[in-house]
């Protein structure tokens, strides 16, 4: 009888059980290629990055794990990733009122100015928090969250210090609350006026190991946000403040940090307009004061410029400068209606985007009896909140037209005017900025229901290349600008499985004739439902790969690569 009841329970338990997961592996075989200066592989012929994850859910309960293997990591990924193991493991119970998660946590407060833990597999980036999270939703529209834990630092163990990593990560603790008035106040449920407010507080407890400075062991940061909407207008803003937090990134100054991110938008069917502004001042926030690059970031300061995805337009991609930036971005999306002279039978989609980022203004201050600016161990500098420096980091003005011409022809074209301060963004000391005109044309012709052909033509024309030869102090070698590029691609697809493409990226305008190289690639990919297998061979040029506003540099390479990705 008891057994019977038990087995009945077990059966209903089993019936609700669900398993899902995903898997991906990227492998590359490297080859020597004297033409593009690869004369030594340093003993590395293969690189393989792989992960597999499994999720289990049963009603309000879910759990998952992700296994990763970098044996060894692909070129361009941090060598700290080299290794294999269980990278992520968690269990969650959430009944709608309360949600508890133990294990490795991903979460974000507001727009992430004081806290965001996330992963971007394609960049080898993961700052998940190993610890606990509690979410309480006491009434409709109100969400309260608390998290604490230690961040993932490649393969460094969480419990004991690993001196190989120079690891003295701190603990991260945070609380966040959000109140959506429209959801919680019945009278406002269907109101044209929308409002929600939120606030967060995050602190890190770190360990002072410094011989030279007194490092604060508790650093707090707070943020407040408000989202307003009325009819077709929406306004969102978030302000964040952090107390003094000397670190390797900010040159060990004891100044407080601030960040502001605001956007105003208007949308109606066929027209969308958005204006965004951002100010960042000394806002790098990491759980270890010696951490560099993207390691152990507690917060996320989003770059707000346009994200290009074609090959040449994405060659010079901006990444956030946490020590200071004044940024603005404006975008219009407009669809010329169907049936008009310019709109044609299918309508014409236009996009205009402008963005610019400058430095903040830093004024000297009186500290320890002398006038000083940005000097180690001092209060750093004073900065007028609204002042914009003449030092421009980045500017991008672009215009795109997206047009279905007929049943079989589709065309996308874009023009971009770019200014890119390569000295600041990529750290090539003394290198003059890249100023370029870039354009592409992407045409698709549908042969029939199953087959289509796509052609891409792109060009990048750089101004004043001759002046671009300098000795790069930071890399101890000559830095040479690369000048003009052309790119062409032809892709043939057979629905729903096959795609074949060949492409050539040609640095025809390099000021040094020996460097006017071709980067040929050929790719075959096969897709079956949620599985993708891609084989490609050829050369990859040196450059920066960015996803989600975070970038990594990729060295030039030559060889064959294979990607297998699936989910179930």
């Amino acid at each position: 009888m008891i057994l019977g009841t038990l087995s009945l329970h077990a059966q209903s338990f089993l019936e609700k059980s669900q398993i899902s997961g995903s898997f991906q592996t990227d492998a590359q075989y490297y080859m020597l290629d004297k033409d593009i200066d690869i004369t030594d592989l340093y003993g590395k012929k293969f690189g393989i990055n792989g992960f597999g994850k499994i999720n289990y859910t049963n009603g309000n309960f879910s759990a998952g794990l992700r296994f990763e293997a970098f044996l060894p990591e692909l070129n361009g990924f941090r060598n700290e990733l080299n290794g294999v193991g269980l990278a992520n493991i968690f269990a969650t119970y959430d009944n709608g009122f309360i949600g508890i998660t133990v294990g490795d946590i991903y979460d974000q407060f507001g727009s992430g100015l004081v806290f965001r833990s996330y992963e971007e597999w394609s960049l080898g980036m993961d700052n998940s928090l190993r610890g606990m999270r509690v979410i309480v939703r006491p009434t409709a529209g109100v969400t309260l969250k608390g998290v604490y834990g230690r961040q993932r630092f490649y393969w460094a163990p969480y419990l004991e210090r690993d001196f190989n990593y120079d690891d003295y990560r701190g603990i991260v603790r945070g609380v966040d609350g959000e109140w959506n008035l429209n959801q919680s106040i019945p009278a406002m449920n269907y109101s044209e006026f929308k409002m929600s407010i939120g606030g967060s507080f995050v602190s890190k407890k770190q360990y002072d190991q410094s011989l030279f400075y007194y490092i604060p062991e508790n650093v707090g940061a707070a943020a407040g946000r408000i989202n307003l909407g009325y009819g077709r207008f929406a306004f969102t803003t978030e302000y964040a403040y952090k107390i003094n937090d000397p670190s390797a990134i900010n040159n060990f100054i004891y100044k407080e940090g601030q960040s502001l991110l605001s956007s105003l938008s208007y949308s109606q069917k066929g027209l969308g307009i958005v204006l965004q502004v951002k100010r960042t001042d000394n806002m790098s926030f990491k759980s270890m004061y010696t951490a560099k690059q993207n390691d152990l970031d507690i917060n996320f300061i989003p770059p707000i410029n346009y994200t290009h995805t074609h090959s040449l337009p994405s060659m010079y991609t901006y990444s956030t400068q946490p020590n200071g930036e004044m940024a603005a971005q404006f975008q219009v999306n407009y669809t010329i209606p169907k049936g008009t002279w310019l709109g044609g039978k299918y309508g014409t989609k236009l996009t205009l985007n402008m963005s610019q980022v400058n430095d903040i203004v830093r004024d000297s201050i009186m500290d320890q009896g002398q006038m000083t600016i940005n000097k180690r161990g001092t209060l750093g500098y004073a900065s007028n909140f609204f002042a914009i420096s003449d030092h421009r980091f980045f500017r991008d003005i672009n215009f795109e037209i997206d047009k279905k011409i007929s049943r079989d022809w589709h065309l996308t074209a874009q023009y971009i005017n770019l200014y890119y301060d390569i000295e600041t963004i990529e750290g090539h000391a003394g290198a003059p900025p890249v100023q370029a005109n870039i354009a592409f044309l992407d045409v698709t012709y549908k042969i029939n229901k199953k087959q289509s052909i796509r052609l891409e033509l792109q060009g990048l024309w750089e101004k004043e290349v001759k002046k671009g030869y300098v000795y790069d102090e930071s890399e101890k070698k000559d830095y040479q600008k690369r000048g003009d590029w052309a790119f062409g691609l032809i892709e043939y697809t057979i629905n729903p499985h096959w795609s074949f493409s060949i492409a050539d990226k040609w640095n025809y305008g390099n000021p040094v004739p020996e460097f006017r190289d071709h980067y040929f690639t050929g790719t075959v990919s096969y897709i079956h439902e949620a599985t993708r297998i891609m084989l490609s061979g050829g050369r990859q040029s040196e450059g920066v790969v960015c996803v989600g506003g975070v970038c990594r540099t990729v060295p030039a390479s030559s060889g064959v690569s294979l990607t297998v990705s699936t989910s179930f």
Partner: protein
Amino acid sequence: MKKLFVLLFAVLVVSGLHAQQKSDLPNVTIKDLQGKDVNIAKLSNNGKPFVITFWATWCGPCIKEHNALDEVYQDWKDETGVKIYSVSIDDSRTTAKVKPFVEGKGWDFEVLLDANGDLKRAMNVNNPPHTFLFDGSGKIVYQHTGYFDGAEEELYEEILKLKK
């Protein structure tokens, strides 16, 4: 402790493999364009099939797929009653742009924001675009990653199969 957890997990996985599925919709809460919470486990389309498609404003093939779906959406709705949920995985760089972008393109889908990838992880999406077709009871009957011109035809054939 970790080993115990893994072992427990393995048992659950094995038991899960024998299980009969009810709904494939994960218990994850994300937001709509008005900032309202939406629990994915509660999505439905009155017993009719629905589509969840993952995209981002910075993903070229995704925008192609959305444009193609937009052209046929009205016909599909009339013929099968299908509903399309479009889940943007744009993070805080671009979340503020999603609404003007969607309106500017003139799309009619129900758009949801998955700003920190919670739903993306729960539904095991490796790369966008990734499109799922659910039957009326919330079970995944078809999914597809990537987009080639004309791929929406195959999706429609799968939707028509559910009509029978």
